[in-house]
């Protein structure tokens, strides 16, 4: 609730309209870039402008905060802003998780001529039967989709060719009785290591936060530094995984719906990890400059919430894309 007339309403600012212009130029530039024969020049101009504007904007906000202009109420506005922003990000991922769920459990069955969940009975609908008999003859329901409907019909001349190998849990290839003896197959399985890394980093960022709150700058900086390093390590492993997929698994964006959902979900997650790592890195630099105090640390807190969010998304990915993928 409002305190007595202290809420800081900033003066006029040139930053927002330049930011809007940068977004406009980036949008226009990106569109002209993806169209055949396009080049990234306009987009990069927009990006450059955006970088400058963002830099200035955050510097301004930090300056204002250092001057004590931001009271508790304004800080609470920032908190709300960040939390609802993270909520919007959750919904963005929900769209892609939802798409994965729908194609895996509904579309895949219907193209294969089967019933999906069979709420009332398990008879395939006429549409599903016709789908399989007339359009995608010979396609069999499967997940991961290793042979696309396109391949089932067109064989070698198919546009969408399924991958040679999927990214899912290696143990699925063996009967349960052999799992114990095959545990070693998990060792080179990168997603497991990525999970360990991200979980650890969520823990270290928490330790850093505790250190900050306790006024222990050394702990704060050390653990935040470790977190940032783990972020980069995760990204490195993700790049290695993508390389493996493209070079050895025949798994690409174009290899049907499995490649589509795999790369889009993990790709957007990777993009968010990148953003989160950069955010934490900036907080680390700010921390080294001594810009945080025991009770004033919103920039860092916001970045750490974002980091936890990215971590939770990964757990979802790990379950539905990798383990049960």
């Amino acid at each position, binding site marked *: 609730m409002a305190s007595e007339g202290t809420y800081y309403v900033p003066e006029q600012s040139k930053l927002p309209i330049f930011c809007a212009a940068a977004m*406009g130029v980036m949008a226009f530039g990106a569109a002209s870039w993806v169209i055949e024969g396009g080049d990234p020049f306009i987009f990069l101009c927009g990006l450059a402008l955006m970088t400058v504007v963002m830099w200035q904007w955050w510097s301004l906000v930090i300056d204002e905060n250092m001057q004590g202009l931001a009271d508790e109420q304004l800080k609470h506005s920032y908190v709300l802003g960040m939390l609802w922003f993270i909520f919007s990000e959750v919904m963005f991922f929900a769209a892609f998780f939802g798409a994965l769920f*729908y194609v895996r459990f509904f579309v895949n069955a219907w193209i294969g001529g089967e019933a999906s969940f069979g709420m009332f009975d398990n008879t395939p*609908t006429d549409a599903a039967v016709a789908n399989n008999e007339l359009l995608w003859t010979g396609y069999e329901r499967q997940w991961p989709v290793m042979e696309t*409907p396109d391949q089932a019909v067109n064989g070698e001349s198919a546009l969408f060719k399924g991958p040679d190998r999927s990214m899912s849990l290696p143990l699925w290839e063996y009967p349960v009785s052999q799992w114990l003896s095959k545990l070693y197959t998990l060792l080179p399985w990168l997603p497991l290591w990525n999970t360990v890394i991200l979980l650890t980093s969520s823990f270290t960022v928490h330790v850093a936060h505790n250190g900050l709150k306790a006024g222990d700058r050394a702990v704060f900086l050390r653990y935040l530094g470790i977190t940032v390093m783990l972020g980069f390590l995760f990204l490195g492993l993700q790049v290695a995984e993508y390389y493996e997929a493209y070079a050895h698994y025949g798994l690409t964006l174009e290899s*049907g*719906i499995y490649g*589509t959902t795999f790369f889009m979900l993990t790709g957007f997650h990777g993009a968010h990890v990148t953003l989160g790592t950069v955010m934490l890195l900036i907080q680390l630099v700010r921390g080294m400059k001594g810009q945080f105090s025991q009770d004033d640390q919103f920039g860092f807190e916001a970045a750490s919430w974002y980091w936890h969010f990215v971590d939770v998304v990964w757990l979802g990915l790990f379950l539905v894309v990798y383990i049960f993928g």
Partner: protein
Amino acid sequence: MAHGPAKGLGRWLFTTNHKDIGTLYLLFSFAMFLLGGAFAMIIRAELFQPGMQLIEPEFFIQMTTMHGLVMVFGAIMPAFVGLANWMIPLMIGAPDMALPRMNNLSFWILPFAFAILVSTLFMEGGGPNFGWTFYAPLSTTYAPDSVNYFIFSMHIMGASSIMGSINIIATVMNMRAPGMTYMKMPLFVWTWLITAFLLVAVMPVLAGAVTMMLMDINFGTSFFNAAGGGDPVLFQHVFWFFGHPEVYIIILPAFGVVSQIIPTYSRKPLFGYSSMVYATAAIAFLSFVVWAHHMFTVGMPIAGELYFMYATMLIAVPTGVKVFNWITTMYRGALTYETPMLFSIAFVILFTFGGFTGLMLSVAAADIQYHDTYFVVAHFHYVMVAGAVFSGTAAVYYWLPKWCGRMYDETMGKVQFWVAFIAFNITFMPQHFLGLAGMPRRYSDYGLQFTDWNMVSSVGAFLYGGAQLLLLYNIVRTVKYGQLIDDPKVWEGAIGLEWLVPTPAPYHTFVKPPVIKEGAVGAEEWLIDETPSYASYKTVTDAG
């Protein structure tokens, strides 16, 4: 902060003031309204007679597409955001929006986004030609190159909406004056809080939908391509998961406006305030779980059809609560019929009518007949135009005197109302008949048997377009030459914090938050405990 507006163009480009930004939103949305209206005029002119007279079919479908996109994203949504910017801080006793610079950013993205969108009309291959719902594969496999511009303009438009909504949520949750509890907030604030929540929840899903399109078109993914194991119907699911809440995003603030206006001219508090709040929340919740009622003919399993049918019908219950409350508010009130009230009453009647045709459409078995006909077009224009646009117009007449300190001409207001009301019904009532008779939507030509009603509809459409020019005239005339007023209350029966600040509203209001008394909701006394100091406003305005 004790200063007035800056001089010159810079005031509008760099402003952080919620009133300036509200004005910008309103002006922009009105410009888009006229542009989208011009597209509609082209559509109706072509449909005046069967056969092709004025334009090519390729251009016709671009017009229907752009009409929808511009009206939904450019006219109606920004109009209500403009009203939110102007009124929410005034209504809850806040000095401004919670994040004023981001507020400015949210607005200024829009001109860029729409410049990109409209420029597609001049590109090789033409603009978007796949309907405002941009179903795949029309919008992917068969789309012109300009679809990429459409996609990215939707991205930044969505960013604008999300930032705008986060700002509104933060303002309402964090900036209420002491004593302004949630259940004392004016209904307009409540409906906007819930709308903002819907926006933050579904605009990212829309971003996801256009991103999937982008990937399918340019990077070889197969979200919407069955050959790779995807499904064009997936697009419809993702789109309508956004699209259905979107219609409530448009109509909930309209509910809020009407819930402010009807009590004023009934000189009675709103009937059933808390049930209004709960009904709004219930509608918002239900809006997430009914999306596939737009897809009854796409080939869903019978269980899906039944579920989405019953869930959709359920929405009639909270909506009925609202209509009941508006009517009961008027019941035995001391009613007067100023222009905002006329528009609000017309809203209640015509929106309810549109709600009923919505119920008809929700019957899965019957929808197979109605689907993609002019019946659907008529239905959603009753809720979008007689709903959202009428309520937006009512809001402008209602608050314009508070904004500019001048009174509009009541006679001219009433003339505009009656022209709009009659023309609206001439335009869209016949479209029900056309649809039931089987005329499909989005076609540039039609069978001879549809001629008469199409002619009537086109005449009505041009009249309705004229009514909007009359509105423009009324607004300009009021702002420039309207009779000066200085009564803070403006309307005899008006209740709320916005009616306690001077008229016209000073550049900065509630720099020091007022304290709200304990007491019954809607009663006049609850509003002031510690009157905001008018002397300080005087100095503020003088200094400016």
